[in-house]
């Protein structure tokens, strides 16, 4: 009796572990199997042709993801340019300089920022930031890549701060003590010893922030303007891969070419984030170079 329970529980738990792998593989499988008909019908070329995404066009629909890839790149890079320096600096401060009460005060704030639903944050971007940007740059609308990048950057900030702080904290005390004992100032110790030692962890934090930025959907959907034209500058309206899917997902005809094309976009998005996260994973596993 006891042994049956024992065996059953073991089987249940193994199943749960297995399910996690199955879900990941399942996502990849679903993306592949649903994009295949589209890829077979059209080939890979039209998805990357210098063209537009216009699957609804009468007569000759086009499926180029190129402009959306540009859009994704712009928003992601813009977000990182803002979020990585700010995030790493904040992490360095929290890990190395902050007094206990400052940590007690700032850490929950970072946590709360992480908890703000993206749709709320973006709503703020839409109604407050966009008019400001429009006025500052003398534009008709503040819905552009810049606005998107800023908000996505804010969204990636907590991830970067938390993980970079972990990486910096993980640097052995001995390093710091050695540097300080040689007459290094705390400032020198931070920049010459601690941060270089935590470099792979910090890079990983940036990568994971990047993963979030690439996949972020609602932000870009609501504040980047969603024009499918090729963007020229950060003040242009852009559409990203994730927003492109979100816009069409609601009313796409099941099993149409358009439907399959959306899965191609999803597959691309999945593969990019997968690669980025895998890289971050490898970097995180690489602990700071410490002698055993």
């Amino acid at each position: 009796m006891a042994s049956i329970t024992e065996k059953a529980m073991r089987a249940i738990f193994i199943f749960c572990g297995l399910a996690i792998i199955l879900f990941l593989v399942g996502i990849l499988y679903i993306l592949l199997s649903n994009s295949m008909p589209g890829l077979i019908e059209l080939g890979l070329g039209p998805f990357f042709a210098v063209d537009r995404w216009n699957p609804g066009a009468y007569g000759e629909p086009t499926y180029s993801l190129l402009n959306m890839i540009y859009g994704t790149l712009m928003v992601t890079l813009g977000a990182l340019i803002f979020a990585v320096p700010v995030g790493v600096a904040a992490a360095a401060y929290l890990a190395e300089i902050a007094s206990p009460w400052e940590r007690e005060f700032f850490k929950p704030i970072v946590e709360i920022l992480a908890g703000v639903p993206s749709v709320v944050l973006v709503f703020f971007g839409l109604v407050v930031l966009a008019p400001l940007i429009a006025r500052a740059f003398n534009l008709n609308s503040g819905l552009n890549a810049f606005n998107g990048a800023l908000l996505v950057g804010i969204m990636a900030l907590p991830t970067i701060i938390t993980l970079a702080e972990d990486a910096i904290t993980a640097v052995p005390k001995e390093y710091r003590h050695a540097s300080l004992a040689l007459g290094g100032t705390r400032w020198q110790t931070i920049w010459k010893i601690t941060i270089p030692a935590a470099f792979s962890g910090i890079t990983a934090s940036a990568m994971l922030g990047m993963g979030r930025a690439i996949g972020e959907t609602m932000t870009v959907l609501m504040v980047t303007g969603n024009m499918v034209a090729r963007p020229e500058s950060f003040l242009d309206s852009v559409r990203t891969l994730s927003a492109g899917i979100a816009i069409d997902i609601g009313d796409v005809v099941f099993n149409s070419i358009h439907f399959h094309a959306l899965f191609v976009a999803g597959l691309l998005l999945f593969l990019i984030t997968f690669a980025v996260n895998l890289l971050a994973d490898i970097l995180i596993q690489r602990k700071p170079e410490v002698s055993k």
Partner: protein
Amino acid sequence: MKTGVLDRGIVFEKKKSEWRSHELIGFWALRLTLVLVLFILGIIVFDIVSKGAGVINWEFLTQPPRVGMTEGGIFPAIVGTFYVTLITIAFAVPLGVGAAIYLNEYAVQGKFTRLVRMSVRNLAGVPSIVFGLFGMAVFVKIFGFGPSLIAAGFTLGLLTLPVTVTASEEALRTVPRAYREGSFALGATRWQVVRTVVLPRAIPGILTGTILGLARAAGETAPILATGAAFFLPHLPDSIRSQFMALPYHLFIMSTQHHAISQVRPIAYGTALVLLALVCLLNLAAVLLRKRYRDRVAKGL
């Protein structure tokens, strides 16, 4: 600057004040980044609270939208978010805790556990819209749920799963090994060890992590776009197969898709505030739970 050993004392004093000021400037520069974070959060919360608070009253919270969603309340969206979160819990918590128990209590650490953990981390990185695509293809179409509470709940559950697994594993790992050994040495089976010693001790930690995961799921929009969220419904969902209104989706609609966007702006602000408050409440609950749990551990119960 080059002075003899005997003059060290003076050099030391001079240098000190020199690097002192450099360091102070640097420290302040870094501190400012955190102040910036605080400022961003503050301005967002201030904007939403100041403009949303006036809209919120009893009617707003308990009435459905009226007159083409330009008047009335957001009651169906609140209820929908509540229901979908329940399904998310039912999906993510047993699976997530089960997987964590497997990883931490049952499995021999090796290739397979590494694979599972890697999957968890990668699942955490999958963009939410891709979860939406998956949910649409699998739960809506293949399983035939149609756009419904259950399809959306499962999709969100999948999205929350990595958080649940990670938090549960962390909680399980804090249970001292000595407890397990003590229990095994008394002749407990593995499941008895888990049930009587490990889980009671880990459950507050698991709960905390799960609530944080749910707070995230409750605020997600992209995964429910095509799996069950509805623009407007005249009545509340009556089964898990019904479509539903949800707070984040409602906010999205009210701020970008509605035909009279500027007219319904106050409603959008009110919705944003309710959603923000809900998520903050969940987070607060998690923090309080964590604190109570720590106190209890400190007291040794």
